[in-house]
């Protein structure tokens, strides 16, 4: 957890409770510091936030102005009122989770999270009952930002988006460190790891050369 610098604090509120953030902190940083729960999937402290899963949305209000923002990236400003469970917020989370139930029905984490919002089933078409990946890109980011090898990336776009290695063949750049597996919020990377690193016993010389 980041240290609070008491010199420069931004005063605002979360769910009516006074909150203080250091400059550079996001709403999520502050909420976690205060022990307020906001669900997240694509967020990990080791990498830069990208605001992709949108589960961490909160509503920011000031006077008549109101906006739904992602707490993992939103820098609070003096006097803003943050609501972590308003109707608009719950509406976004509920729909995202119902759609995720159809996207990755094999994920226990998604099922558990959906149950918190009263969702047991989905009305949308299930394409692959085995799917666990939510395409949050944490694996890709940790590989690039922390490990520094960029063995995997997100390929294609939109509904065709997928996690893969270049040309979809095992990538020698992979050092088989397993960081992608450990940050994966749904365990989907586990089944993909072998496709990324290939057969390690066949590697020669310095083996995991970049």
């Amino acid at each position, binding site marked *: 957890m980041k240290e609070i610098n008491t010199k420069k604090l931004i005063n605002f509120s979360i769910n009516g409770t006074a909150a203080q953030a250091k400059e550079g902190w996001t709403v999520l940083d502050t909420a976690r510091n205060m022990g307020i729960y906001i669900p997240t999937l694509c967020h990990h402290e080791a990498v830069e936030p990208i605001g992709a899963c*949108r589960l961490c949305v909160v509503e920011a209000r000031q006077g008549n102005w109101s906006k739904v923002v992602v707490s993992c990236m939103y820098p609070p400003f003096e006097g803003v009122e943050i609501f972590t469970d308003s109707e608009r917020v719950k509406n*976004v989370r509920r*729909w995202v989770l119902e759609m995720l139930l159809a996207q990755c029905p094999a994920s226990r984490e998604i099922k558990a999270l959906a149950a918190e919002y009263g969702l047991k089933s989905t009305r949308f*078409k299930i394409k692959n009952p085995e799917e666990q990946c939510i*395409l949050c890109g944490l694996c890709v980011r940790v590989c690039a930002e922390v490990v520094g090898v960029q063995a995997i990336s*997100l390929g294609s*776009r*939109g509904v065709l988006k997928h996690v893969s290695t270049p040309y979809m063949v095992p990538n020698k750049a992979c050092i088989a460190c397993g960081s992608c597996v450990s940050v994966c919020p749904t365990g989907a990377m586990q089944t993909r790891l072998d496709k990324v690193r290939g057969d390690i016993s066949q590697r020669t010389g310095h083996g995991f050369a970049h």
Partner: protein
Amino acid sequence: MEKITNIEQLDLLKNSLRKARESGRQVVRVCLGPGCRAQGADKVAAAFRNAVRQQGLPVKVEPLIKETGCHGFCKEGPLVTLEPSGLFYSRVKPDDVEEIVEKTIKNNEVISRLLYSENGTVYKSAQEIPFYKMQKKIASRNVGDIDPLSIEDAIANGAYQAVAKAFASMTPEQVIKDVEVSGLRGRGGAGFPTGRKWRSAADAVKKHPGPVYVVCNGDEGDPGAFMDCVVMEGDPHSVIEGMIIAAYALGARQGFIYVREEYPFAIKNLTIAMEQARSAGLLGANIMGTGFEFDIRINRGAGAYVCGESTALFQSIEGKPGEPRAKYIRSVERGLWDRPTVLNNVETLANIPVIIENGGEWFSKIGPPNSTGTKAFSLVGKVKNVGLVEVPMGVPLSTIVEDIGGGIPGKKSFKAVQTGGPSGGCIPYKLKDVSVDFDSLTKIGSIMGSGGMIVMDDRDCVVDVARYFLRFLEEESCGKCLPCRLGLEAMLEFLDNFAQGKGSLEDIEELKSLAKAVQDGALCALGGSAPNPMLTTLEYFRDEYEAHIIEKRCPAGVCKDLITFHIDSEACTGCGLCASNCPQACITGEDKKPHEISQNACTRCGTCMDLCKFSAITVS
């Protein structure tokens, strides 16, 4: 051309070029805009050159053949105009060219067959035609007039005069002030005040000294929109000049024009124009001998619609996948390579030189107070005069569709207009007198957008229209955030059900709730505005949605699962037009006797219904 090394030299050059023009030489302008080119205008232009060469006319009489940008009246293309007679010839074919040279150019005879006529009136010149009469051209002032590949032609028309004025008599601060006073709002869609954008970027640079960039957004991707394409192709110098002025105001030294690869002629003309400007000393190091340095690079977009979004566009220029990022820190502060960046649309930048030349005050008097100036629209769909129009802001929608556009062709009736492309809304006939400006359109649930205007008649089904735009965005979604990647697909599932007569009234409410979640939750404006076409059609045409769901009926006769076509044996004259055009060849009947449709083979494409002159095809 000789390098221009001081500001007076530009004036001298302009005057001498103008003088040369006034020699009385005939000019033939052949429109090579996208519409005319598709109809073979390049062959017409080549035929003119050939014919003139073969005639061996003495130099003084030999006409100047100009291949210009879009004249606007695409429906009547290929278009040819002649100076000084002012004659306007429409639907010119290469075979007509010899006659034009022989009769009109050599003997001043008018070929009445090629003149445009409407409701029995024959028009000799473009200015008299209703389509042109009500327009006011600012951004596209030179398009169709100049040869875009000739910088001399542009300079004779006044190009780079505004840059000269800014350099000679204005400080960067005064330039920003003038743009603020003009009230110009971004023409790319969101309508953010351009002056304020420049001011914020200038402030950001003051706070964090270092590079600042000027970027031109030419990634026009809305279905049916081609305004920016026409400006870039027809008058590339106006865009370049606008960028130089922006660069001067901000102290930028590098600019980028992001053009989609699907616009090869825009890329070609811009590249040539930039080269000419560089060798004329109007771009690059030491512009006009003032010591000011600014150059532009073209970045070609690979065709991703989302790259029209500012942050995705920056990513793309930086060589990364075109995905937007959250804009809690605005791009005027942190844009390209995290430096202050001004991103303006093509049309916005094309307006800048005119504002600087005539003053912001002058510009602010055109149109209503909060939406000043003019706006270019590409008028497409079920409208008689398909083409490009530029009108002052604040004109009623009906003026554009009915007076300039000539209304709906055939016996069909005007149903709705989609403005703002897939992010915009569907404006019903009953709101046809709405003032076309940023705020009025937003108020009724649509947006101005970049200026695509798709007209629909009673053969267009709103459920189908909403599905079309949603499917377009689903394909173009970058897939980064879940509400967009999954939400658009989910909304489509609802609409696909409606189109098949499935679903319930509760589903409509659920769909609205999902739409709200997508609007609130999506990362960028692509997802955030994606529900607009569906929401506006639902608001204004709810009865049609209900007809699909409750009565299992598609009133417009479009949704294939809900319709069958029949031939009314009393109205059918047996002309055989439907039978000979049916792609399935499933219409049979004897000559001059009522025909019949074989329902088993019919794919419900509706060709027969659209073609029948006797309204004998019924849909049920």
